């Protein structure tokens, strides 16, 4: 009981700056809207109606919401890329690319302890992640490429219905992929990958919060995480 009653001191660390939090929730919201409207567009519900077509425009409205949200998603992503060069250590692009030896060590550690659920014999302070661990940040890198796939295929399919120059930048995509049908299929498949990502992402947030109790889930609202005092004293940003 003696060791157990030794409780730890925690410090509050601002990990996620306000732009990161705004990006996160705007991104989450637009992904949800895009998935829901996307599935409605892919397979609209059967409606028996005696209304004249001229009295109704709901499917057109659903498509309009999808397209408007796509612009929000795109602009938000561009803003986040900007912040990857301007933001703090945890928002920087370097936090997402495992190119250092340290990051690979962290990946091995997280795989062992959090994915395969083995226990460490001795607690190593350095292993406590303050921002993302490198497995998580790598999954966001994958999500970033998935977002690129959605933006390119989506705006590529949208281009012929638009006269604006921005969608026209993507007009080459369907030709490159062999037509609208394969482009649409890729767009549809990567929607499912977004759903799978969301499942895993939300689960792992809950897992970390449940196991560690450091404010993992609320950090994306408040911006703060709680980190052991000793960990901060020796901090070299990981």
């Amino acid at each position, binding site marked *: 009981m003696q060791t157990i009653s030794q409780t730890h001191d925690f410090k509050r660390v601002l990990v996620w700056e306000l732009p990161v939090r705004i990006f996160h929730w705007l991104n989450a919201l637009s992904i949800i809207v895009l998935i829901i409207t996307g599935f409605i567009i892919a397979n609209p519900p059967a*409606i028996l109606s005696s209304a004249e077509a001229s009295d*109704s425009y709901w499917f057109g409205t659903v498509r309009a919401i999808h397209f408007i949200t796509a612009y929000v998603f795109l602009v938000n992503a561009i803003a986040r890329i900007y912040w990857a060069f301007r933001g703090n250590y945890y928002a920087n692009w370097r936090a997402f690319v495992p190119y250092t030896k340290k990051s690979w060590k962290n990946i091995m550690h997280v795989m062992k302890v959090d994915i395969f659920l083995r226990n460490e014999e001795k607690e190593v302070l350095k292993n406590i992640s303050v921002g993302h661990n490198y497995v998580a940040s790598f999954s966001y890198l994958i999500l970033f490429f998935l977002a690129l796939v959605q933006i390119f295929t989506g705006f590529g399919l949208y281009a012929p219905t638009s006269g604006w120059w921005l969608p026209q930048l993507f007009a080459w995509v369907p030709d490159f992929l062999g037509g609208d049908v394969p482009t649409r299929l890729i767009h549809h498949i990567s929607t*499912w990958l977004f759903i*799978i990502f969301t499942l895993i992402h939300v*689960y792992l947030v809950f*897992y970390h919060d449940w196991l560690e109790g450091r404010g993992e889930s609320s950090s994306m609202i408040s911006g703060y995480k709680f980190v052991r005092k000793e960990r901060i004293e020796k901090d070299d940003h990981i």
Partner: protein
Amino acid sequence: MATNNGVKETYYESAIKKGYDRRDFMKFAAFITAYMGFEHTMVGQVAKSLETTYRLPIIWEHYQECTCCSESFIRSDHPMVADIILDNVSLDYTETLMAASGHQAEAAKHDTMKKYHGEYILCVEGSVPLGADGVYCTIAGKTAKDHLIEAAEGAKAIIAWGSCATNGCVQGAKPNPTGATPIHKIIKNKPIVQMPGCPPIGEAMAALIVHYVTFDRLPELDRSGRPKAFYGKRVHDTCYRRPYFDAGLFAETFDDENAKEGYCLYKLGCKGPTTYNACGSMKWNNGVSFPIQSGHGCIGCSEANFWDNGPFYKRLTNLPGFGIESTADTVGKVAVGAVAVGLATHAVVANISKHKELKNRYTRGRVNEENLDKTEEN
């Protein structure tokens, strides 16, 4: 160009000779100008060009195909399309319509190729089989590939006419046993106009030739080499059932009440939203109808590899490698289910494996809570 007797004549002269009067001719000029997408003030220029320009020599080659492309243009709206622009012109050489046969036909073709070297337009209907050294399609003892290379050599421009010539169509569908190959993959050094469709619209072909005659150059082409005037819009964008799409009114089966009402065929696999063609505005058979108007969804016949792009009567394309009739949604649902099961297992195992850690943290938290209670009581 010259007819077989060697006398050069213009399109107008040819039409008059054939028994059309000037009124017919002007009607044709107005009609083809509209099809080219120009405003009516251009009619004069088109008519003048047709009056003053000698007819273009055209060689029409048939390789691996079903002749539906030729059938399409001989049934076109205005008789002059078939009579003057395409049919007679191609009398020099077109297997289906020419009078000559055998050695005479080959001789006629070689005459034209020699006489109008660098001037004639080569129309190719059909794909070129490259499998087994090209034996799947031989004409006059030579393979289609040899014919194509020979004919393309002196051509001013090439028109790949129909889906076979532009993307291989049904012969080129998996597993493509004959090695059917579209024209642009064999001929690289000539301007090639792609006119996909199974078949393409005859008037579009006539308008392409008239455009060439009027302006002495090819019309504006898109990235895939298709004339923008005819392939710039999706069938969906010019479909008369589009209001039903926007209103969310869809036929669920081909025999339900909604289908009878003429609702949108989107859910029955209509490929209109992914197909670039002018069917919705030009229509077929003297403007009588087009597939969607007849109650059948578009099958996307002018899109590359439309045979391989999944079932005609479903919206979602089959996923290759996941078994027959498995769509992206089925695979997606299974994958989400598997991930959910995996995560639930992870959660259970985590609570067992990390039991000690959780318990220690819990105890420490409890100790703090008890201490807090004491301080408050004091």
